[in-house]
C-alpha cells in the first residue's frame, strides 16, 4: 500500500462526522498504517458544516486532503453533497447519505457508522480493525446497534457495486 488513501467525511454539526473520522483513523492505525486526520472544530456545535480529512498509507505528510484529491467523499447530510463535491478527485467515489436507507438502521443516529461500513467495502483495511475501532469509540450499550449499522452499510455498498 504505497499510495496514500484520502477520505473526506462531511456533514452538519451533531451528526457524528468527527466520531466517524476518529473511528476510520483508528481502524487505519490498528491496521499498522501511518495515519493523519484533520478537521476544524470549535464552531461545529453551532449547527454549521463539519468536515474531516483522514489520510492513511505508508507515510502521510500533510494532514489535509488536497482539494480535488479525495479518493472517497463520505457525506452524512444531503445538503452537504453539492457543497463538498469539488473535494473529490476525478473518478473518486462519493458515498452519499441515502446509500443506506434509514429503514435499514436500528437507530438512525448510527448513519455515520453505517456509511463507514459502506466505505470499508472499498478499502483494503481488515474488518476486524474497523469493528475494534467502533467498539473503542463508543460506549458498550451502543456496540450492537453500531455493529449492525456497519454490516448494513457494507452490504448496501456491495449491492450498489454489483
Amino acid at each position, binding site marked *: 500500500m504505497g499510495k496514500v488513501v484520502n477520505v473526506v467525511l*462531511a456533514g*452538519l*454539526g451533531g451528526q457524528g462526522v468527527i466520531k466517524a473520522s*476518529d473511528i476510520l*483513523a*483508528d481502524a487505519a*492505525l490498528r491496521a499498522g498504517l*501511518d*495515519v*493523519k*486526520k*484533520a*478537521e*476544524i*472544530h*470549535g*464552531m*461545529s*456545535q*453551532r*449547527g*454549521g*458544516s*463539519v*468536515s474531516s480529512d483522514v489520510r492513511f498509507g505508508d507515510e*502521510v*505528510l*500533510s*494532514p*489535509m486532503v*488536497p*482539494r480535488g484529491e479525495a479518493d472517497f467523499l463520505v457525506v452524512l447530510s444531503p*445538503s*452537504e453533497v453539492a*457543497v*463538498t463535491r*469539488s*473535494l473529490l478527485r476525478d473518478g473518486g467515489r462519493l458515498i452519499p447519505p441515502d446509500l443506506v436507507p434509514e429503514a435499514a438502521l436500528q437507530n438512525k443516529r448510527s448513519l455515520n457508522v453505517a456509511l463507514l461500513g459502506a466505505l470499508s467495502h472499498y478499502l483494503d483495511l481488515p474488518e476486524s480493525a474497523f469493528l475494534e475501532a467502533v467498539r473503542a469509540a463508543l460506549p458498550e450499550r451502543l456496540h450492537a446497534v453500531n455493529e449492525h449499522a456497519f454490516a448494513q452499510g457494507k452490504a448496501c455498498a456491495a449491492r450498489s457495486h454489483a
Partner: protein
Amino acid sequence: MERKLLSGDEAVALAAREAGVVLGTGYPGTPSTEILEAFAALGGRAQWAPNEKVALEVGLGAAYGRARTLVTMKHVGLNVAADPLFTAAYTGVSGALVVVSADDPGMASSQNEQDNRRYAVAAGLPMLEPADAQEAYDLFFEAVALSERFKLPVLFRMTTRVCHSKSVVRAERPESAPPAPHFERDVQGRVMIPAFARPAHRRLRQKLDEIRAAAEDGAYSFTRPGGTELGIIASGVSFLHAAEAAPGASILKLGLVHPLPLERARAFAAGVKRCVVIEEGDPVVAEALRAAGVRVESKPEMYRFGELDVARVRRILEGDRSPEPPPVKGKPPELCPACPYHPVYAAIRRLGCIVAGDIGCYTLGVLDPYQAMDTCVAMGASIGVGLGLRHVLPPEQAQKVISVIGDSTFVHSGVSGLIEAVYNPPPSGHVVLVLDNGTTAMTGQQEHPGTGRTLEHAPTGKMSIEGVARALGFSSVTVLDAFDDPAAFEKLLAERLGARELSLIVARRPCVLAAADIRKWEKQAAERRTADVCRAGVEE
C-alpha cells in the same frame, strides 16, 4: 512501542504529564482548550484562570518556585498576557515555564490571524514550533529542557492544524527527573526595578546568543534530503505541506523559530539553486533571513492570508499569483435553536439598540435574523467601547447604546470596564447586559470563576457577577431569565436604556448544550456536601 493516535493538543498534554509538569494553567481558547483538559484527564493538576495574564503570572510564580509549569492560551490570549511576558523574559525562571499559544491562520474560530512568532522576537524569548502531534510531544520535552537550562520562559507556538489534527505518536519519554519545588531568594534577578532590569536585559540577550549557537550546531532543526535544484526552509505544519508539494526538494525544517540558526540557513541556501521560505502567516522567517543577507525567496503577499495547504504551497513554488478558487462554502454556524439568547436578541433588535458586543457564542447574534451587534473587538471590549460611544454620541443615539458581554468574558476582562463606568460615567448613564449561560460555551463548555466549579467540575469559590457590580457602585442591578419571561426582559431593558444611571442586567439561563452536565455536577456537589456533613456528625 505503543503507537497512539493523538491530536497536537493531546500530545502536549501527554508530554507535560510525563515531563513532571506540576501545574498547568490557562484560559480556554480554540484551538488550545483541549491541552489542559487532556492534562487533567491524565491526572495532571490543571486549572482555568480568569484570563491569560493571571494564568501566566500564576505559572511564573510556580516557575520561580522551581516547578515545571505549563501555561496555555490561544494566540490573542498572549496579547492579554504580554505585560508579564516581556518582563518575565528579564527575570527568567528557576524551574521550567512553557507558554503554549495557538495561532489560528485562516481564523477558523478567532477575531484575527495575528502571527505570534512576532512575540518571540519582540519579547526576546526562544520559541519552538511543532509540525504535528509527534513533534508536539518531542519538542515539549525540548522546551522543558531549554527552559531549565537557560532559566527562561519558552514560547511554544502551535496552530489550528497542529492542535486539532491527529497523527501517530510513539511516546518515548526521555529521562529527566523534575527538581523539587523550592524558593531561593534572588532579589536582583526577580525584582525588576531599573537598576536590576538593566543588567537583566543584557543577560537575556546573552542567553539568546547561546541558544542561537546551540541551534547553529544543529539542535531543534533537521534537513530532509533532496535535490539541489530546489531548497525549502519551513516550520510548523507548512513543512509537511512543502514535503508533499515538492517531493524532490531539500528541506531545512526549523523547530526553533526564534532565535533562528542564521548560519545554518545560509549554508543550506548556498547549497541549492533556488531557496524558498514556506511559512504560514507573516513572512517572519523570510524577513529575518533576508535581513541577515541570506538569499531566499519569500511567498507572494496573497499567501499571507489564511492557512497554507499542499495546493497553496505548489502555487507559491510556481510563483502563481492568479486568483485562487473560492473556498468550499458550507452552512455557517448559528445560535442553537434552543439557545436562551434568542429572546434577548429579539428584544435588542426591536428596541433599535446600538450594541457594543463581545466574544463568545453570543457574537453569532450579529447574523440573521437579529443582526444585533455593532462591534466585536477583544475580550471585555464591549464595556469600554459602549462607554466611549455613550460619551460622544448625541443624546438620542447615546441612550440606545448597550454593552453585551457573556459570563466567562465578563470574568476575563469585564470588571475593569465596570470600574471605568463607575469612575467616568457618561451623562446618559449606561446599560451593561451580561448574558450568563453558566459556562464558557463557545470553546466547548469550560468552567470559569463565575460557575463556582473547577476545571474538573468540582465545587470551589464562586464569583458573583451581580455582587461585583453592586460592590463597585452600579445603582441598578437586576438578574432575570429572559427566556422564561421575554416581555419582562424587554420592558426592563427599554426602561434602563433611558434611565441616565448605571444599570447591569444579568440574563441568566444555562446553555442548552451544558444544562444536563451542569445539573449532574450540581447533584454531585450536593451529594458530597451531604457526605461531609454525615462524616462530621459521626466524628463528633
